[in-house]
C-alpha cells in the first residue's frame, strides 16, 4: 500500500467516524459541530490526494473556518439543552436507520465491484489556482456573477431574519 492509499483510507475512516459522531451525538450540539469540522478537514485532505489543491484550501477556509463557526455561534448563543430521539418512535427510528445502512452497504458493494475507467494523465498544474482561475473566469464567468448575487441576497436575508424588531 503506497503512502497515498494509506492516507486516503485513514482520512476516509476519520471522515466516516466523525460524521457518525455528529449525527448520533445526542448530548452535546457543540461536540456535533466539532465532529463536523473534523469531517470537513479530513475531506480537505482527500481533496489534496485527488489533486484539487485550491478546492482543499478553500474547503478548510470557508467550510471549516467560517460556516461551522457560524453554527457554533448560534449554538452557543441559544444555549440549547440536550436533545433526544422522539419518544415512542424509537423502534421506527432504529428500523429506518438500519434500512438506510443496509441500502448504503448494498450500494457500496455494487459500486465497488463495478468498473470505472482508469484515471487519465494529469495536465501539469492541474487543480492549482491558476488553472481553476482561468476556467472560472473564462468558461464559467456567469456562474461567478450569479454566485455574487446569491451571496448578496443571502446577506440581506440573514440580516432581516435576525434583526430584532424595534416596534
Amino acid at each position, binding site marked *: 500500500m503506497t503512502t497515498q492509499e494509506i492516507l486516503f483510507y485513514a482520512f476516509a475512516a476519520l471522515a466516516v467516524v466523525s460524521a457518525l459522531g455528529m449525527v448520533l451525538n445526542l448530548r452535546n450540539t457543540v461536540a456535533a459541530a466539532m465532529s463536523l469540522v473534523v469531517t470537513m478537514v479530513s475531506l480537505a485532505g482527500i*481533496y489534496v490526494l485527488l489533486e484539487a489543491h485550491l478546492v482543499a484550501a478553500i474547503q478548510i477556509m470557508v467550510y471549516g473556518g467560517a460556516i461551522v463557526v457560524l453554527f457554533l455561534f448560534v449554538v452557543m448563543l*441559544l444555549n440549547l439543552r440536550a436533545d433526544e430521539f422522539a419518544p415512542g418512535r424509537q423502534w421506527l427510528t432504529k428500523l429506518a436507520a438500519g434500512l438506510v445502512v443496509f441500502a*448504503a452497504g448494498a450500494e457500496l458493494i455494487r459500486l465497488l465491484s463495478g468498473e470505472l475507467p482508469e484515471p487519465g494523465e494529469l495536465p501539469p498544474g492541474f487543480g492549482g489556482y491558476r*488553472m*481553476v482561475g482561468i476556467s472560472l473566469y473564462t468558461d464559467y464567468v456567469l456562474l461567478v456573477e450569479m454566485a455574487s448575487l446569491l451571496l448578496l441576497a443571502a446577506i440581506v436575508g440573514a440580516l432581516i431574519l435576525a434583526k430584532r424588531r424595534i416596534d
Partner: protein
Amino acid sequence: MVPLEHVIGLSALLFVIGVAGVAIRRNLIVVLMSIELMLNAVNLAFVGFNRLWPGTAEAPRLDGQVFVLMVITVAAAEVAVGLGIVISMFRNRDSVNLEDVSLLKW
C-alpha cells in the same frame, strides 16, 4: 492512486449518513449540519470524477472543481439564511425542536 470506486463509495456513505441525520434528528441545527454533510459528500463525488476525466494538457477540464466552488458558495449562503431562520424560530417558540413548529401538520 486509490481506485475511484472507493472515493465514490465514501461519498455515497457520507451522503447516506447525512440523510439519516436529516431524517432522525429533531434539533434543527443538527439537521442543518447534516445538510452540510450531504453537500460535502456531493463535493467529494465532483472532485473524484474530475480526477477521473481531467482533460488533456492542451484542453484541461476543471468543471468538477469549479462546480465544487459554486456548491461551497451556495452552502455558505444557505447556512447564513438557515441560521437566521433558526434564530427567529427560537425567538418565537423558545425551542429549536422540529416538533414544536408543526402547527401546519394535519
